[in-house]
C-alpha cells in the first residue's frame, strides 16, 4: 500500500510537530510543521522506497503539500 509507506516515511523523515495520526490525507503538511529541508529527507526516502526519481519540475511545495499529493506524485512516476 503506497499510502501506508508514505505515512511511515513521513513519521521518520517529516519532523512534523503534529502527530501523523491526527493528519488526514488532505491535511496541509506545511501547516503541520514540514520544512523545505525536511522535504529533502522525505524525497530521498521516497525515491529509495519506491525506486523512482522526482524530476525538477515536481520539486515544489505542491507535490509535498499533503499525503494525497505525495501519493499522486508517486503513482504518476510509477506509470
Amino acid at each position, binding site marked *: 500500500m503506497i499510502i501506508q509507506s508514505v505515512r511511515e516515511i513521513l513519521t521518520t523523515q517529516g519532523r*512534523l*510537530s*503534529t502527530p501523523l495520526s491526527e493528519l488526514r490525507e488532505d491535511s496541509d503538511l*506545511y*501547516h*503541520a*510543521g*514540514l*520544512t*523545505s*529541508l525536511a522535504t*529533502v529527507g522525505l*524525497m*530521498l526516502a521516497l525515491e529509495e522506497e519506491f525506486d523512482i526519481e*522526482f*524530476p*525538477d*519540475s515536481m*520539486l*515544489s*511545495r*505542491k507535490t509535498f503539500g499533503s499525503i494525497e499529493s505525495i501519493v499522486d506524485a508517486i503513482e504518476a512516476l510509477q506509470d
Partner: protein
Amino acid sequence: MQDHESLSSTSFIALISEVRRVGREIIEPNASDVDEKSRFPSESIDALRKLKLLSAYVPEKQGGMGLGIVQVAKICEVLGRYCGSTAMIYAMHKIQVACLVQHGGQSSYISSYLDKLVSEQRLIASATTEIGIGGDLRSSICAVERDGSSFNLIKKAPVISYGVDADDLMITARRDSDAAKSDQVHVLLHKDQYSLEPISDWDALGFRGTCSAGFIVTAQGEDEQMLPAPFADILSQSMHPFAHITWSALWLGIAADAVNMARKFVKNEAKRNLEMPPISAIRLGEVESVLQTMRSNTAVAAADYQNMLAQNDAEAFTNFGFGIRINNLKVTSSQLIVDIVGKSMLICGISSYRNDSKFSLCRHLRDAYGAALMVNNDRILLHNSTLLLMHKGDG
C-alpha cells in the same frame, strides 16, 4: 498577486535623475555623519518621501508609482552609490511593501493601509528573526495570542533595523498558541499598537545608519492586520526574492561607486603624466569586468522574477530551482562587492585607506563586509546544498 505596469521609460529616466540629484545634494553630504554617529539618515529618507518613493511599488491604480522589481532595483543601486545605509533602509522598506502589495490583495484593511502609505509616505520596519531560533525565518517561538478578534503578541527580536524611526512594523509569529513553529503569519502593526524595549544597541562595522538594534516587541492588534496568505508563501514568493534582488542591487551601487572612485584616481594620475600611465591602470580594466558580472547577475535575477510575477503562477515560486537561483545571487553578489571594493582600493592606494581623503573607500569596505553576514552565506549555502541533493538543474 499583483501584476505591475511599469512607468514609461521616459518618466522613469526622469525619476532616476531626480534620485541622483537628491543623492548628490542630500544623501551623499550626510553619509559620513550618518556613518560616524551610527544614526538614522533622516534627511535622506525625508528626501525620498518627498519624491514619493516610499510607495514606488504600490500599483498606480492605488496611487503609487506602479514600478516593477527591475525599476525598484535600479533605485536601490543608485542610492547605494551615495549611502549604503540609506539604500539598505530603502530596500528593507520596499521588501515589506512588496509583501503587502502582493499578498494583501483581498484584505480591505491592507488596501486602506496602502492608501495611507501613499499619502503619508510611511516607513515600514521588519521583525522576522527571533532570539532562540538561530536566524531561521521559517520558525517562530512567539505566537499571536488570540482573544476574540484581537490579539496580543510579544516577540524578542535580536534585530529590528530602524525600529525606532519606522512608522509601522511587520512581524512574524506562529498563527496561534497551538500552531507548529513553521505555521506562521505575517502581521502589520501601527506604531501606536506596539512598544519597543531595547535589548541591544547597534554599534557595528558597517551599515551603521541602519540602526539595527534589538528589541522586545509588545503589541496588540486586530485579526484583520494579519496578511491573509501564510508567511511561507509570502517568503517564497515575495520576501526572499525581493530581498536578495534589492540587496544585490544596492551592493552593486556601492561597488560601482568604488570603481568610479578608482577611475577618477587613475584619470587624475594619467593627467599628471601622460607619457607614463599609472601602474594601477590595468587593474581598472580588471575590476570593471568583475563589476559587469555582478551587474549582469542582478539584472538577470530581477528580470526573471518580474517575468514570473507577470505570469501570475504562484506555484512556480516554490520550485527548488527558483529558490536556489535567488540564493546564488545573494551569495555571489555579497562576495563580489568585497572583491570589487578591495580591487578599487588597490588602484587608489593608501588614499583609499585614509578616512580623510577624497578617495577614501573605508566606508565602502566596511559596508561590503556586512553583505555576506546579513542572512549568513554559510546558512544559505547549507540550504542550497541540501536542495541540490534533489535538484538536477536540467530544467
